Every structure is written in C-alpha cells, then in structure tokens.
C-alpha cells in the first residue's frame, strides 16, 4: 500500500528545545493512532504535516506533494486542532459556512455541507448559538465538524476525543471508523491508550520527539505486558488478601501502603492477577473498597520503554 503521508528524517526544534527528532513515518489509508504522553511531539508532527510549521530538517509530503506553502494540498485535508480555539463571537453555523467559503463552493453547496456536518456532530439544534456559549463537548464537536465539512480524503485529528463525555466519545469513535470504511486516511493523536485502541489497531508510539515503536495493538500490548504493573487494592483486610497471593507466580512483589489498608502488588501479568483477585475476594469474603493502577498510564509505559 502506498503512503498517503510520508515524513522522512523530520526534525523540528524550538530554540534549544527539540520538538521532533529525526522522525521517519509513512501513514497509509485507514486509521493510524499517534500515541504519546503530553509534550511527546504529537502536535508538532501534526503541525508539520498540515503546513503550519516548516521542518528544520527532513521533509514531509501529502500524496506526494510538499505541504509548506502549498495551499492546493489542503483541498483534500481536514484538520482538527487540539487547542480549544475559535472565533468566539460567531454562531456554529456562521463558523462552518465562513470556513467553507475558502473551498470555492457555491452558496447553496456551502449551506448544504454545513448543515450536513452539523447534523453529523448533533449540533443542528444549537447551530444558531454563539460558540462562546457552547459547552466543552459542543466546542469539540464543532471543531470536528469544520474538519469534515469539505469531505476531505485525509483527516488529521489532534486529540479529538478530549473534552467529550463517554457517550460523545463513543459516537465520535463510531464516526471516525465510518470514515475509515469510506476509504479515507485518518491520523488521530491521543495520550490515552484505550481511546486509540477503540479506534484502530495501527499505532505509532511517540515520546520525547522520537518514534519509539510502531505496529499493531498486539505488538504494543506485548511491549506493555513486559512492563511490571503496580496495582493497589484497598480492602478491609489487606494482610489476609496478601496471604492468599503469596504463592502466586504472577506476582513479583507485594507491599503495604502507609494507610495500612492498601495492598500494593507488582505484576507482569495484570489480566491474570485481576482474574485471580475476583476469585479470592469471593472465596475469602474480603471486602474490597477500591482497585487502582497508579502506573497504568502511558507515561509509565513510555518511561519503561525508554528505560528511565
């Protein structure tokens, strides 16, 4: 399959700060997830492929064309920025129709496209309200609407799910997947693994401006599995609980937290541990108040992968 977006040896620095370091990446048709903690370089990469920045080194092309100062290429690109930024004093309708003017459509087509995009993001009833008065979720949806209103073949979505409620997230995830089935190329960034996992199996891990790993979800999961997880279990009798797990081979280490009520377990086999925990709790009748995984976040995984 040929690359729709191709970056080769792409580097970008802000003064002394390295934003992106020698990144080479090919994005093909379908959904590709760009996964990384905040400040990893996801937005920098997206700004480079949407011509908002020019690289200090390397080059980037979209469908074989350079991006910087090449307005023609944007006929086929829809971009949803990460920041919560708008022309605040216009209504959702005015915002969409205003931006659609830049594609050279006739007035009737502009209205038609704006109405369709608003319908897709469920904002038809609020189209005449000022954006200033929109909720966070509505703002996120109108931002998404402006990226899809011109039916671009390539969608660059920078953290599109942030700020949405669970229902809104589910709807948007379904929508993005529908776009995939229409043969579009979609690059989505997020710092939340389950969000990316719900969207695609093709993932690029980015950290400190470098691509750490890329592949499908099982591959990434394997990397994550190698990372010992910490799980905290707060219960009425943490010592009794610990006694039940002493002989369990999946557990590497157990400690008690300072509050005297929390058992902290370190394991390589998280799913296996959770399976055993359910059985133990039911069997011994130990009341469990809370289960949390303090390092179950990307930052911890990345730190593990880069050996910090």
């Amino acid at each position, binding site marked *: 399959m040929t690359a729709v977006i191709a970056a080769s040896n792409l580097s970008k620095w802000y003064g002394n700060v390295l934003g992106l370091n020698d990144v080479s990446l090919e994005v093909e048709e379908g959904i590709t997830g760009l996964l990384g903690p905040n400040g990893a370089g996801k937005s920098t990469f997206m700004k480079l492929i949407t011509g*908002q920045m020019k690289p200090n080194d390397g080059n980037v092309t979209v469908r074989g064309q350079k991006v910087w100062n090449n*307005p023609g290429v944007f006929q086929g690109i829809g971009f949803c920025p990460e920041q919560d930024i708008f*022309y605040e004093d*216009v209504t959702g309708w005015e915002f969409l129709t205003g931006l659609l*003017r830049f594609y050279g459509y006739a007035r009737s087509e502009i209205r038609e496209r704006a109405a369709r995009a608003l319908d897709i993001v469920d904002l038809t009833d609020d189209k005449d309200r000022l954006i200033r008065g929109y909720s966070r979720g509505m703002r996120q949806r109108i931002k998404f609407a402006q990226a899809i209103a011109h039916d671009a073949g390539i969608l660059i979505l920078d953290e599109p799910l942030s700020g949405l409620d669970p229902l809104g997230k589910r709807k948007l995830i379904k929508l993005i997947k529908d776009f995939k089935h229409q043969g579009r190329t979609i690059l989505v960034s997020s710092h939340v693994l389950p969000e990316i996992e719900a969207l695609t199996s093709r993932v690029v891990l980015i950290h400190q401006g470098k691509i750490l790993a890329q592949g499908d979800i099982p591959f990434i999961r394997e990397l994550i599995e190698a990372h010992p997880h910490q799980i905290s279990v707060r219960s009425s009798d943490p010592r009794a609980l610990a006694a039940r797990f002493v002989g369990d081979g999946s557990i590497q280490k157990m400690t008690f937290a300072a509050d005297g009520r929390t058992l902290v377990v370190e394991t390589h086999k998280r799913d296996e541990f959770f399976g055993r925990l359910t059985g133990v709790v039911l069997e011994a009748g130990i009341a469990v108040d809370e289960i949390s995984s303090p390092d179950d976040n990307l930052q911890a995984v990345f730190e593990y992968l880069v050996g910090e």
Partner: protein
Amino acid sequence: MTGASAVRQVFGFFSFLVLKTGKTRVFAILGLMPVALAVIRRVAIHGRSGLMTAVFTEILMVFFLQFYIVILALFYGTSVTAEEVENRTLAYLITRPIPKPAIVLGKFAAYSLLMFAMVALSLTLSYFIMNAARLSDPELYLTFLRYLGVLGLGVLAYAAFFTFLGTILKRAIIVGLVFGFGWENVIQYFPGSTQKFSIVHYLKSLLPYNPANVRGGRGVALLLFRLEPTAPLTAILTLVVITAALLALACWVFRTKEYLYEE
C-alpha cells in the same frame, strides 16, 4: 482557488466577523465623539443660526487626521495577522486551500473598508452639523470630499504600515503607538525634507489651504503649521506607493515566516 477569488472570500468572511467584535463597537462610539462635540458646539454655544468657523473644522480634522485614523489603523492593521497568532485561530486559515497572501489582503481590505466607513460616517455627520448654515454653498461639498479623500488615503497608508508591523513583530501595538503618536507627531514639524519621512506629511500636503473661504476662518492653519508641502500629485503617488509596498512586504513576510504559538 485563484488568488483574487480567495481574497474575495477572506474579505467576505472577515467583513462579517469584524462587525461582531467589541473593538468595533468601541471605535464606533469613539467616532461619535466629534459628532457629539459638533452638536454641542452648534446648539449650545453658537445657536442654530450661527455660522460655524473653520477653526472648529480644523480641530475636528486634527482629531481625525492625527488621532482617529491612526488609532483605528493601529488596532485593525496590527490585528490582520497578529490576532490570528495570538488567538491561535491561524490554524483554521492556513490549513485551507487559499494562498497566505490572500489572508493578508482579504483581511486588510475588510478592515480598511470598515475603518473608512466609520471615519466617513463620523466626518459626514460632524462636518455638516457644524456647517449646517452653509448647505447651499457648493464649496462646502468640495472641501468635504477633499477631507474625505485625505482621510481615506490616510486609513490605507497607516493600515498598510501597521499590517506590515503586525506580520514582523510580536508586540506590534507598542511599536505602533510609538510610531503613530510619537514619530508621526514630532517629525512632521521638522524643517526641510525630514518631515517627508512621515505619512502625515503627505496627507497634510493634500489639505485645502483656504477651505470654503469661511468668514473669519483661518483655513487649516493649525494643521499646516510648519508644513513644507509636497505637490498634491506627488503626495498621492507617494501614499499609494507606501500602501502598495508595505502590503507587498506584509504578504511576503506572512508567506515565508513561521508563526509559533506561545505555550
């Protein structure tokens, strides 16, 4: 989309958008100040039948020429590009299939038209309220048109200067204030050719020397103080060249410069 068509679309979008901003409301109210003064002057001090002197016209022209058009151009001109960067809305514009210079030219045209409309409305009302007793005098209308033309050229030249400033500087307003109310105010009174390094010199060179021959009037003596005028045609050409050159520079800078948002 072709360049001209893109400029037209940007113009259309921002002509609409700029009307909704608080800035426009503030400057429109500011434009009512000379109108209110004209009414007060005419009704309260001189009475309805009194012949207004050119002195007051002169004061009004000082307001328009050395304050109103400068402050309008400063705030609207610098915001052509700077507000997009500061508000981070630039991403919505530069990821569209329109050339970057079209953004500058379209916004410049939209803002200039708005500025001119505000100036024209304010001047028209204040001028004719003050000269209401002479409405049958054809000379009055010629003088008015001349004032309007001078202010129109002033709006364009200043706006182009501040637009350029906005593309190259992060804090263009501060530098603009120093230029508009420092440099322009001082340099115009320098003798010889030094005063030609100001925009206001060329605008003043186009003012009528003896406007409307009003009885007891002094023309625009205050405005013409120490002026060593440039020939009208040369002044017009200079203003047009200043406007065109600065706009071309602004377009070039905006096209080649990378704007990074402050985190």
